[in-house]
């Protein structure tokens, strides 16, 4: 099947405006601004069943419909922070199929009446930002951005904004703080961005991949999109496959494909053909799923993954084989979360600090079973109490790791 999102894999040079336009590019945007009312655009997206690809899977059309029309101006922000360990799909889209993303962003902006949109890229995507700036300039030259676009009354500007090395800025309210020139620390929610967002104004934040889905939906219709994937998870998803597989990389597949198919068919199986041990389906924030046949045959959609004790999240599938001990895995993840905790709320700031001390001790072989018990207890003490989801994420691998792979910890503390 031809790619819907990773179209560059089928069409060379689609990252050039002329090539993109020759292949149907900007037809959707044209249709929107010249023939549709903003709310009609939102309705189509709503009907398509598109859910946010940033991790939480929130219905995109519904989010757009929440925009507060009593307070102006509105903003749209593309979340290109892509910092979850194991996630590397947005970068491929922006580097290789940038216009489809930009078109989706422009359509969303039209749908909610925003005249300025920001793309928040993680600071490391320095070159990607420069590349996008050129693409944006191309669009301006072609009259696809700027004043009175395509003869309509609609005007839009798109700007890139670079972060500077902070995972927390992927959290949408921290991201907004960061654009406002502040420390990237999450805000209390509610109010949510569609009510109070950037500069206190109604704002829609979506992931890069989410936006990239929008042009084909508008062109082909909601029903077409819904026909792909599963009832609860419509459409296609880019799965970032990494870890102990032979062929890591991005794979665009309809929701509902099994883990087995992803890992063995697309990923080429495990390095050295070792047995697979665990899967983290949503990057470092995931639960550790014990891999057995049942797990391997579970379809990858939001509802099904939950049945095996995990969340699909951003679908960054990290594969762990039997050469890897789980105490090492959680030491890695806690190292990450301790480094990335913004420090605003107590449980995450303090919890990660102490958890790291314990995972270090356990992993280095100087820990005791009491340390493991305390570690589990501290992780649970954090759960449900943090200001944002980062603190919650940090506990996932720890709790599921200790509870589901106790033997690895017994070994580690005995050594």
């Amino acid at each position, binding site marked *: 099947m031809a790619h819907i999102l990773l179209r560059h894999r089928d069409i060379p040079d689609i990252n050039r405006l002329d090539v993109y336009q020759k292949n149907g590019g900007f037809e959707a945007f044209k249709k929107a601004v010249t023939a549709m009312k903003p709310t009609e655009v939102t309705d189509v997206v709503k009907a398509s069943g598109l859910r946010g690809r940033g991790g939480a899977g929130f219905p995109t059309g519904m989010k757009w419909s929440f925009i507060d029309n009593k307070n102006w101006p509105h903003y749209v922000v593309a979340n290109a922070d*892509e*910092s*979850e*360990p*194991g*996630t*590397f799909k*947005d*970068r491929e889209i922006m580097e290789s199929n940038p216009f489809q993303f930009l078109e989706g962003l422009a359509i969303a902006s039209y749908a909610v009446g925003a005249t300025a949109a920001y793309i928040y890229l*993680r*600071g*490391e*995507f*320095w*070159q990607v930002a*420069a590349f996008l700036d050129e693409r944006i300039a191309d669009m301006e030259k072609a009259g696809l951005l700027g004043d009175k676009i395509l003869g309509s009354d609609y005007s839009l500007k798109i*700007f890139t*904004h*670079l*972060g*500077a*090395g*902070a*995972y927390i800025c992927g959290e949408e309210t921290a991201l907004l703080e*960061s*654009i*406002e*020139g*502040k*420390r*990237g620390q999450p805000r209390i929610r509610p109010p949510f961005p569609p009510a109070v967002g950037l*500069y206190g104004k109604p704002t829609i934040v979506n992931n890069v991949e989410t936006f990239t889905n929008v042009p084909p939906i508008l062109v082909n219709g909601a029903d077409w999109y819904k026909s792909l994937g599963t009832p609860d998870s419509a459409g296609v998803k880019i799965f*970032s*496959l*990494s*870890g*102990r597989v032979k062929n*890591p*990389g*991005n794979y665009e597949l309809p929701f509902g494909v099994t883990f087995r198919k992803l890992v063995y068919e697309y990923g080429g199986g495990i390095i050295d053909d070792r047995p697979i041990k665990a899967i983290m389906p949503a990057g*470092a924030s995931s639960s550790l799923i014990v891999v057995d046949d049942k797990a391997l045959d579970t379809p990858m959609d939001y509802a099904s993954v939950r049945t095996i004790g995990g969340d699909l999240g951003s679908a*960054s599938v*990290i*594969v*762990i084989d039997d050469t*890897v001990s789980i105490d090492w*895995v959680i030491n*890695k*993840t806690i190292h*990450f979360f301790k*480094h*990335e905790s*913004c420090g605003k709320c107590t449980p995450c700031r303090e919890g990660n600090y102490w958890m790291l001390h314990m995972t270090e001790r356990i992993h280095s072989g100087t820990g005791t079973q009491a340390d493991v018990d305390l570690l589990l207890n501290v992780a649970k003490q954090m759960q449900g109490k943090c200001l944002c989801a980062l603190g919650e994420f940090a506990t996932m691998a720890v709790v599921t790791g200790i509870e589901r792979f106790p033997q690895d910890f017994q070994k580690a503390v005995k050594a």
Partner: protein
Amino acid sequence: MSLAQKYPNEVNQIMAKYPPQHKRSAVMPLLYLAQREEGCVTKSALKDIAQMLEITETDVASIVGFYSLYHDQKAGKYRMQVCTDLPCALRGADRFLEELCGNLGIQVGETTADGLVTVEGVMCLAACDKAPMFQTQGPDGIRYHENMTVDKTLELIEALKKSGREVE
């Protein structure tokens, strides 16, 4: 010399991105600009940016302190930042970093004697399928180097030494 004097075009472009009443938003891009030559944000740059954006120096410093890509201390001309996070580590990143440092005769976090490169271990860079990988942060901005080996890296360092610039 102030940033506005040194880079008038860049500063104007940056300021134009944000609503005039929210010019504080420009603090992050301006900090990158300030860091370009020195490799770190100097005290005078802090003052300069604070004045330009009508915020306090403390405000600016607290931004520098929060984000890991801003530095308040000088290091090597290039920071070579190897991802050693979970997905990369599952593909040998830790070993790569160790061997690289061994070859350069430095510890992680240290700078080569000629002051050219500082090697650091960093968190996930969104290139997990192309480990081992690192980014270089230097006067030419940030660049990715993927599917690396120690040999290829040493070659890159040699080239940097010769040209003084990052060759693409």
